[in-house]
């Protein structure tokens, strides 16, 4: 399985670090990309990842109200809510995109979220975006 995770550097990336320092184990399917704030996630990043056939995209940010930049994650929440609907409509199971709120103190939640993501994806019946849907013509 292959999951790309975008983690904001203040909360969830630090949460992931805490999971590390606490030696909590979680599946190795996840690749973390550090971003300053969850609001840095361009929906096209997600679309691009999905279109390359990843099983899932995980986005993690500070809890609503706790954004290091005060409001960033509120925008993200709105965008991703709608993006999920669009994915669903276009034939990608919206479960493939998950957003978690993880604070810097929640190493446990980070590990738990990865496990949650993996087990959700394992349960899915449908396949991710085909690796090679070909070219037009």
């Amino acid at each position, binding site marked *: 399985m*292959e999951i*790309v995770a975008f983690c904001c*550097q*203040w909360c969830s*990336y*630090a949460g*992931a*670090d805490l*999971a*590390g*320092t606490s*030696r*909590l*184990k*979680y599946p*190795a399917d996840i*690749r*973390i*990309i*550090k*971003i*300053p*704030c969850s*609001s*840095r*996630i*361009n*929906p096209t*990043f997600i679309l*691009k*990842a999905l279109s*390359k*056939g*990843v099983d899932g995209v995980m986005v993690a940010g*500070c*809890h609503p109200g*706790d*954004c*290091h*930049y*005060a*409001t*960033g994650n509120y*925008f993200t929440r709105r*965008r991703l809510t709608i993006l999920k609907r669009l994915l669903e409509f276009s034939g990608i199971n919206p479960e493939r995109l998950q957003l978690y709120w993880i*604070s810097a*103190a929640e190493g446990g939640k980070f*590990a738990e979220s990865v496990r949650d993501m993996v087990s959700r994806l394992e349960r899915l019946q449908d396949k991710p975006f085909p690796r090679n849907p070909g070219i037009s013509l």
Partner: protein
Amino acid sequence: MRKIGVFVCWCGLNISRTVDIKKVVEEASSHPQVVCSTDYKYLCSEPGQKLIKEMVQEKGLDGYVVAACSPSMHETTFRELASRCDINPYLCEMANIREQCSWVHEDREEATEKAIKLVNMTVEKVLYNEPLYPDSFPLTKRVMVVGAGVAGMQASLDIADAGYEVLLVEKRPFIGGHMTQLSETFPTLDCAQCILTPKTAEVARHPRIKMMPYSEVEEVKGYVGNFEAVIRRKATFVDWDKCTGCAICIEKCPKKIYSEFECGLKEGKSIDMAFPQAVPFKVFIDKESCIFLNRGKCGVCAKLCPEEAIDFQQQDQLVKEKVGAIIVATGYDLIDKSELAEYGYGKYKDVVDGMQYERINSSSGPFLGVIRRPSDGKIPKEIVFIQCAGSRDKEKGKPYCSKICCMYTAKQARLYKHKVPDGQAYIFYMDIRAGGKGYEEFIYRSVEEAGILYLRGQVSRVFEEEGKLVVWGMDTLSGKKIEINADMVVLASAMVPANGVKELANKLKISTDEHGFIQEAHPKLKPVESMTRGVYLAGCGHAPKDIAESVAQGSATASKVLTLFSRDSVMAEPTVSIVRKDECSGCLSCEIVCPFGAIEKEDYRGKIIAKVNSALCQGCGSCAVICRSGAIDLRGYTNQQLIAELEAALWK
């Protein structure tokens, strides 16, 4: 593009135990742009850094990737090293193969594969990193300290003594904070007022400290070195230039009210001075209760005041102040009554919290230092202290230790024993935490003291029966149920952040932790800095602590501010947004979403487009995403960099 080096760290066994370092090194070297790939036991060590430096010179690297621990550990280390190697520090990136790989995965193969990916991703990112250079801005060498507790005062004094002007904003009408309410203080048991008064006096007369009691911060704009604060000076309805503090008015004021200072143990008046040694030595009118202000009648004080200082027309004033740095020293409050209902707190008068007990114990307090219980003024013969009342309690949302309760409970019990030698004190505790110079000894003395009984366990209920307070508890050591019939119960209530701190934090654009305490920039390395540059934190607003620590932190922030003021300009982080002018359509969506107001308008070839004020920009990247055309991009996390990283993550 560039020649990249990859350095893989073993971190002793920390990484090498689970990750096949050799394989990672090999895989990295197969990247056409990686011209040097090697490993070392501890890259952060002196020889490790030397190795990197040598490689940079030998191979003429343009940038490098250190695959090691989390960037929050050592990014600074390796970026500084880059500078020393004549590489722009922003051309160094870390691949986190410890916290996010070797420590969390067990399967060697999986972990190795992941580490390879993480290195690939980071290499690809570095290929698109641009050298970045910090910007510099002018600096106003003036500081605003919010909160005039002992921490805030200490910071103010240090900075003022160093020659800079200080603006000390305090929401209460007097300075000194909670310490003014304490009786004697651990670990030396000297009287709080005695050690505090010289400080408050010094603050009051310091030529470079501008005290602003009874004031609150309304709004803060700007950025490090250039803040502009709007401060609300609340109306006291007394002209303080005239008031001499003679207190005639207080005596005659007919309206009795709850006294916050005395924690309700003694009544206050609508016109009052919190306590006789208050600094400033002035009275003020409580707007909510004053009869005249509410009903237009009374005005006794105005009639009696020999100085004609009463001014019912007074209005709140908004003053604007420019400062270069801000210290937040807003202190604490105690947990609300309603949360301690199981102890009968709020229900029974003789269940008091630690602060009330301090007042009872205080020689200037309601009972002039004689220990009496509030309900009937009797001297309690059996007294129960309950530690961790609210603290370390997940259900109450206060899983943290309030840190000072063990100490002050011991102090309070001992003081009780000094004053009521025939009394019996019981202390319920979970465990004793007495880290601090002389603290353990202090506790030890109280444990040894005859008549103080330490009971390990929790209290499940307190209720009144026949004029006694029945305390049900459990001794976890013996496993026995305990029942004590006490005259008085003292709760070592949890410390919580001062009321209103969250709003203040929002204004300052700093964050608070899950409990509302102000978040430091780094728990170990930047304990007195906030997330926003130029804003520092001291005292209990940051976390529970005792006086000594609060003072130390106050001085620490002062040293930070003085460091900042030692230069004539501030350097800003270069990871800010930037607009590609030709691509900007001028829709100004970015202006709307930027939480820091960092987007300005600019006229470019006859068209209004967006421009980033790099001093205000904090680099969140919201703008870069709302901008459909990608005309605005975040340096250090550009679309190009993130996509490169993303694509590498998906390489087969």
